[in-house]
């Protein structure tokens, strides 16, 4: 029993220590955004790697999510004779919840893991040390552009997810199941308010920052060679997905 409590204590302390370390890492890296040399080109390169390269997978996920939401929504609403509200149901589900969350999880799986592997390999092959010895701050050159790119790219990807999802819902609801096109869009227009959209944007900003922060942190402190990189990559995907879901609950409770 004493051993169990000791283990729990050690794990709790590790968790608190890691959370604190991550916060210091975030503040140090973001603080360097305002220190010269400014690196807009590096930020754009990272927006391309994290954002543009994720567009296809986000569109695919968005399309199928919108389609299945419309399918489920149609049969539920039909029981109450409210098929006309299908557009509102699809749009609200996507904009408030599914868009930011699923985009976050897809970005964490595709780009988060890649970021950890890239930085982890830089660590074990001494590329980060090489930057340091050239008087180039690795946090400013490697980490900060990725964090900014996460904050820029994830909200844009979420917007793409939402639009494609709404069109996927249109395809199933209107084209396949026969809901009126006018009812689909007018119910959407009547139900979706600025707070829903703002909530989705805030969530996607927080998710973007969280995912890339976890990915950079895990990569930056990688140890023990190739196995360490593999472990760090794995931890990034699991931890960032859990954090996205936890943040989702916290932020939703603010916006409800």
């Amino acid at each position, binding site marked *: 029993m004493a051993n169990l409590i000791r283990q729990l204590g050690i794990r709790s302390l590790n968790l608190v220590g890691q959370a604190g370390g991550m916060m210091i890492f975030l503040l140090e890296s973001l603080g360097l955004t305002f220190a010269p040399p400014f690196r807009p080109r590096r930020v754009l390169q990272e927006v391309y790697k994290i954002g543009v390269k994720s567009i296809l997978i986000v569109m695919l996920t968005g399309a199928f999510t919108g389609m299945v939401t419309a399918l489920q929504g149609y049969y539920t609403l039909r029981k109450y004779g409210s098929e006309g509200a299908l557009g509102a149901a699809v749009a609200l589900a996507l904009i408030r919840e599914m868009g930011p969350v699923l985009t976050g999880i897809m970005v964490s799986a595709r780009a988060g893991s890649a970021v950890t592997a890239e930085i982890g390999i830089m660590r074990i*092959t001494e590329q980060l040390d090489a930057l340091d010895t*050239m008087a180039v701050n690795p946090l400013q050159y490697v980490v900060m552009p990725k964090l900014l790119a996460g904050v820029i790219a994830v909200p844009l990807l979420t917007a793409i997810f939402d639009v494609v999802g709404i069109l996927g819902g249109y395809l199933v609801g209107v084209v396949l199941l026969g809901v009126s096109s006018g009812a689909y869009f007018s119910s959407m227009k009547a139900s979706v308010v600025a707070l829903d959209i703002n909530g989705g944007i805030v969530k996607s900003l927080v998710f973007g920052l969280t995912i890339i922060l976890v990915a950079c942190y895990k990569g930056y402190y990688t140890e023990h060679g190739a196995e360490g990189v593999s472990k760090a990559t794995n931890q990034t995907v699991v931890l960032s997905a859990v954090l996205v879901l936890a943040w989702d609950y916290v932020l939703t409770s603010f916006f409800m």
Partner: protein
Amino acid sequence: MIQIINLVKTFHGQTVLDGINLEMPTGKITVVIGKSGVGKSVLLKHIVGLLHPDSGQILVDGEDIVQFKGRKLRDFRRRLAVLFQGGALFDSLSVFENIAFPLREKTRLPEDEIAARVRERLAQMSLTEEVETKFPDELSGGMKKRVALARAMIQEPEIMFFDEPVTGLDPPMTNTVFHLITKTHEASGYTALMVSHDIPEVFSVAHQVAMLHKGRIIAAGPPEEIQSHPDPVVQSFIRGEVDFLEA
């Protein structure tokens, strides 16, 4: 002159450096020898500020660099360059971009001047211009080392650090890299610290050799002196005897 005074470093309760004392004369190449895992690279990383000692001083021109932080540490690092064991070339950059990197980051030289300097260094390393567009994963071990040396030399450093510069290279390439180090040293006159276990090749480039054993410098002096040093540990290592005094 770089002076290391009573440097101590412990990792997880294990003392790796146990009171290192060493002087590196200005303009000379000092080689630290010792078997693998003895702490040679740890010592080097302390002098370039990548590791912080538990105690001790590292004096460069009379100033203790252990106390350097922020801008002062960056200014010190502008004076040095490191050739890492694996080269540490940036995977995402081509050979040209790798060599140009320090100039692009730390100077405001126009691109044509940077290109001219990169090509000059490539030629110095006997690398052709076709290599410029290749990426590090397309290079052989020897080419990587030469590109890394070109990148280090392009900053024209006052102090050079070589971390196992010939590990993993075949004998002709080992000789080539040592020849290039000698050539660049003659041209630039930098102060250098090399850590290596490549005996006897290191004696051809060293002005001073120091032997690290069990966390301490047990012998230091000119190569000839070390080669005839009376300490059996030194002799055993130089002769390449198996697990000297530990078997």
